[in-house]
């Protein structure tokens, strides 16, 4: 659990920096342009593709932030001997945010775009590209080191407060 906590803190820091520095820059005949993930979303919005802009914002910015945020809260709360009921909700939301968090897919997309543009302009990879590259490995590392069952085994139950005998839950014991 401590390792998961450490990895999540690292991911949170990388995520914050990665979203504030340029991802790609380009120079062609003396002109320069650079973009961040949010810059890409903004450009789509300006060009009249609001729905796609919202989708990119959600899968590349919001869902990863939620994923890291929920995991921080879960690892924080799991330090208690008997995690509170609301931890269950956080664990559920964590699972849902993971489905829509697509950092690794975005990275592949950025690399393809980079090589595509490299044909007619000089493309300079930005710091954010490397930070997102690190996140591609950090997020699955969190997933591997985190064992949800460890939390579920200790968590306070919504019904009854204490975990009853497994036989009671299954209704195998009568009377």
């Amino acid at each position, binding site marked *: 659990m401590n390792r998961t906590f450490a990895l999540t803190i690292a991911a949170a820091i990388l995520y914050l920096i990665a979203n504030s520095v340029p991802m790609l820059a380009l120079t*062609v005949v003396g002109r320069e342009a650079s973009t961040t993930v949010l810059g890409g979303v903004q450009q789509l919005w300006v060009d009249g593709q609001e729905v796609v802009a919202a989708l990119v914002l959600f899968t590349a910015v919001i869902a990863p932030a939620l994923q890291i945020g929920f995991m921080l809260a879960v690892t924080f709360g799991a330090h208690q001997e008997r995690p509170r009921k609301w931890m269950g909700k956080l664990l559920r939301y964590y699972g849902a945010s993971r489905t829509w968090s697509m950092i690794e897919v975005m990275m592949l997309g*950025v690399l393809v775009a980079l090589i595509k543009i490299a044909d007619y302009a000089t493309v300079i990879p930005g710091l954010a590209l490397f930070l997102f590259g690190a996140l591609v490995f950090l997020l699955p590392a969190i997933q591997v080191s985190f064992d949800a*069952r460890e939390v579920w085994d200790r968590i306070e139950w919504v019904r009854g407060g204490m975990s009853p005998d497994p036989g009671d839950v299954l209704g195998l014991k009568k009377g």
Partner: protein
Amino acid sequence: MSTPPLTAMQLGLHGCGVCGLVSRPAPGRDEGRCPRCDERLVFRKPASLERTWAYLIAAAICYVPANLLPVLTTSTVAGASSDTILQGVVLLWSPTGWPLSLIVLVASIMIPSAKILAVAYLLIKVQRGSVKNNEQCLRLYKTVEFIGRWSMVDVFVDTFTAALVQLQPLMSVEPAPGLFFFAAVVVLTMLAVESFDPRLIWDASNPSEVRHG
């Protein structure tokens, strides 16, 4: 042949999709709620087949304009040209660039169509109750669930190309209407996969009566 194994539903047991706890439905007020995490418990997702069909048909409809309409418009001093996804693949194809071209081909054209076909196959199999091999069907479902997100690659490629190449009047790239339909196909197929209840596979291969309590 040996008798088919019992399913949890036939034993009257609920599995919780969130915390994994297996429980017998409690009588009264708490019925249908997981005693540990309060998740709604159902033996099978309600109207799973209908909802999956709805998402899938919507995805299949969007698939046509997604492939026929251009996704990017490139404007240069010489004029403007529009590319569809398939044209983008062809443009990327070069002695050095072919691996990338292949990635886009697989992610943008093969995965979405394979996904639509695979989910339709599962739905038809389950509806006709003609599942022969449970494990194979489940593996197909898990594979579709796992690879589905990778179709988003092309949306990100187009986003960053359009964001970066803004050198008016020299050259600029803008997203075109096809991108919306393509993104819709990706999202709708993901929703279709999510609304399909893989436990139905077992019902289709084991059509005996449900025993409650």
